[in-house]
Structures are given as structure tokens and as C-alpha cells.
């Protein structure tokens, strides 16, 4: 369970990047955080992982406050960054996946097992000895997801996971997101490209200029969403259900 209570944050320039944001996402749900560029989506995700701490209000993950239990929160929340290259730490694919479990001080055999399992899950087992910067964009994104999966978090937050990906790349990442959800993870995804994932979402959170302007089931929020700089999926504009990108 993720709960934000009246969260406010500014980067010290007097302008609030988040203001009075409150919502809750129950365990096991897939929630989309949508909003135009600069609406505060990334800032919001960084609060859930504890990379940023709120100036006002509080962020709770499984009842743990990011301010008081930062290490525990980071064990529970895995974060996939927008730019995969920036997140890859290891010099080989398997070393990168092992980075998180090593930080958890797990015994080496367990780390090896988790690395194998995570790479199998994202279909990169055959590239485990390859250097990450030689992977394709979609593969890098899957590698970052594998790195998070190996830590077995309860919550996974993904920042613009579909940006710069082709159709197959989107499908591969989408499958991983759904697999995470199926495994019981709470998943939060930021995007302004709703078409690709909205049909699988349980909840839609809409940010505008740092404020949460709507939260609830996607069907209730999609009409009128374009006034906040987010394109409504073509299907719903025509009154039809959105098709999954996996079909």
C-alpha cells in the first residue's frame, strides 16, 4: 500500500513542484500517473522511493514513513528510471542485476539464483555476460526491470517506461509490468502516453502543475483529460474500449 498525505515539495526556488498531493494505492494495483511535461510525475515517483523527502506531509509505504525508515522503504520500493542508461551500474548484464541484491547483503548463492531468475523472466538470460551499453533500447529497459525484480520489492515505480521504444520494445516492457503486477507487486507507472497501458490500469492519477487534479478508475477520468496536456486514447474518444498493445 502506498499512501501520500498532503505532500508538498519545492526545489528551493519558491515554486512548488508538488503541492498538497494526497492519494492511496492499495497493494497489488497497477496505477498510472499521468500529466503533461513538468507536471511533477518524476518528482512524485522519487518521493515514493525516498530519493526525495517531502517538505510538507508524508509518504508511507506499507505503513513505513520515508522520513523515518528510508532504508526499509528502499528495500520495498524498486524504481526504474526514465533513461535506462543512467540506471545501469554493472559492467555486464548479470553484474548489473546483482547490484541490488548485493546491497541487500544477501549470500552469494542466493544472489546468483535471483540474477538467473530475473534474467530468465525478462528474456535476457542469453545475454548475461554481455556489456549493457551494447544492448538495444528495449533490452536496456528490460535489464533495469530485471535489476529491480532481483531485489524482490513489494512496490515498483516506473518513470516513463515506454519512451523511445518501438512496438516490440513497448510490448516487452508491458509484459514485464503485467508480470510484476501478477506476482503481487504494487506498480506505479508515469506516462503521458496512455494508449499503451491504460487498458491494464486499475487506477489513474492525474497531475497538473504539481497538484493532483483527479484520481480514480480510468473510465471516470479519461473524458476531459486533454485540458491537462494528456492525449485521450483515440478509442475512448470514439466511445470504444482501448485495445491492449499486447493483442
Amino acid at each position, binding site marked *: 500500500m502506498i499512501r501520500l498525505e498532503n505532500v508538498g515539495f519545492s526545489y528551493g526556488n519558491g515554486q512548488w513542484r508538488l503541492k498538497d498531493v494526497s492519494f492511496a494505492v492499495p497493494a497489488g494495483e497497477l496505477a498510472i500517473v499521468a500529466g503533461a511535461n513538468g507536471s511533477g510525475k518524476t518528482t512524485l515517483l*522519487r518521493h515514493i*522511493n525516498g*530519493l526525495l523527502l517531502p517538505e510538507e506531509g508524508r509518504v508511507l509505504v506499507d505503513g513505513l514513513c520515508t522520513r523515518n525508515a528510508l*532504508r526499509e522503504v*528502499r*528495500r520495498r520500493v*524498486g*524504481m526504474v*528510471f526514465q*533513461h535506462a*542508461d*543512467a*540506471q*545501469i*551500474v*554493472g*559492467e*555486464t548484464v548479470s*553484474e548489473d542485476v*546483482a*547490484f*541490488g*541484491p*548485493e*546491497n*541487500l*547483503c*544477501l*549470500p*552469494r548463492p542466493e*544472489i546468483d539464483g535471483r540474477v538467473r531468475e530475473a534474467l530468465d523472466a525478462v528474456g535476457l538470460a542469453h545475454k548475461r*555476460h554481455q*556489456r549493457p*551499453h*551494447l544492448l538495444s533500447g528495449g533490452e536496456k529497459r528490460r535489464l533495469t526491470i530485471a*535489476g*529491480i525484480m532481483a*531485489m524482490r520489492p513489494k512496490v515498483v515505480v516506473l518513470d516513463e517506461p515506454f519512451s523511445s521504444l518501438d512496438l516490440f520494445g513497448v510490448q516487452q516492457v508491458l509484459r514485464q509490468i503485467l508480470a510484476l503486477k501478477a506476482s503481487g507487486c504494487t506498480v506505479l507507472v508515469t506516462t503521458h502516453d496512455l494508449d499503451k497501458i491504460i487498458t491494464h490500469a486499475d487506477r489513474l492519477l492525474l497531475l497538473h502543475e504539481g497538484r493532483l487534479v483527479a484520481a480514480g478508475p480510468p473510465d471516470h477520468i479519461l473524458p476531459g483529460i486533454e485540458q491537462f496536456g494528456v492525449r485521450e486514447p483515440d478509442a475512448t474518444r470514439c466511445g470504444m474500449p482501448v485495445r491492449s498493445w499486447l493483442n
Partner: protein
Amino acid sequence: MAELNLFGYCHGRTFAHRLDVRWKLACLLMLTSAVMTAKPAAMGPLSFGAILLWTGLRLPLKRFGRELLAFLLFLMFVFSARAVSTPGDPWLSWGLVHVTRDGVREGGQMVWRLLMILVLGLVFIATTRPADLKAAVQWLLRPIPLVPEQKAATMVGLLVRFIPVLHQQIQETQSALAARGAVARRPSLRKIRTIVLPTMRRAVLAADQLSLAMMARGYQERRTEADFYTGWSEYLALASAGVILVGTLII
């Protein structure tokens, strides 16, 4: 995509790949010492051994050629410097510059030694996982007081990780400049500035994001460390390197 093979690990399951990194490092030191101290008569067998080692490890010969190109200028410089600076009978003369027979011989021997060391170094890099290399750095630094060995090892790892990224960023900046018509300009301070400044800014931003990503994945100094192991193969490798070193000293 930027690919610097010089820093590249080639996955394999050979004897050298499986060797514990600490012992492998010790063997490398002994073999390098053997090459540096070997008399010309011993260089033949040593070279034959190095070629056998390279082919036995099934490392691609083409790759070695590619790596060698990067060093060619350096080797040529070493050879030329020796050829003209060693006193002896002049063989060729251009004005004040005299190439001596002794210089050519010494230069040739020096280049040969450097080539051998290069082969050994590449064998070490190609058969050692970067994580093991990092672990070896940590292990070596541990006895030194006031040196945070884990931080240092992580820095080494990140440096290795960042080299291809930086290379790629420089290439991208150059391409972006060329796309905007900057290709025809002669090398100038302005051109250097237009490449260096954006690259530095992107590198700093990338480093900043990387540190955030490490924090997000729970980075801490106390982490699971690499496993070291010592078995008969390590003793055998060390004994072989020792025999080669003593042998070259005797010959």
C-alpha cells in the same frame, strides 16, 4: 555504439577464465617480470608460449589486431626514440638525426617486450570479469590503512563502466556538430570548447543520475563481497609462472 574492446571481458570457460583473480594477478606480475628481464634468447620461447596461451584461450585473433592498432603509434614512438637515441655506429642519417644499428636492435627488443606485455595484459582483461577485477582491487587495498577499499573498488568499477558512455557521448556531440555544419571547420579552440563543454555537462548529469540510481537500489558500503577460492589450478598456475620466471633468469 561505442565499443572499447581494450577494457572488454570475453566470456569463456577456460582455465584462465576460472582462475581466482588474485592468483591470476600474481601470475601476470611474474610473467611480466619474466618478459622484462628475459635475454633475447629467451624471448623466442616466451613469445611462442604467449601465442599458445592466446590461441588456447580461444580469444579472437582479429580482436587482438584491432587492439594493437591503438598501440601502434606508441610502439612506433618507442622504437624511433630508441633507434635515434642509442649511441653506436650510424646506419642511416638525416642531418643531425642518426639511426644506429644498436638503436634499431634495442628498439626492436623493447617493442617486442612491450608487445608481449600487451598480450599478457589483454589475456588478463579478456579472461577476468570486471566484478572480479573490482574485488581484487578491494582485496589489494584492504591492508592499507586509511584507504576506503570498498569505495575505491566501486569507483574503479564505475570508471570502467563510464568509459564507453563518455566515448559514446563524445561521438554523439561530434555528430550533432557535424549535422549543424561544424564539420568543415579547422581544429580550433572554439571547436574543442563546443565538444568538451556539452560532453562535460552531459557526463556530470549522467554521473548525477547514476548516483541517484545507485541510491534507489539501496547502495551501501557494506555489501555482499566477491567469493575468492584457492585450489590446485591456482597453485599449478602460480608454479608454472614461477618456473617461467626462474627459467628466463637462468637462460
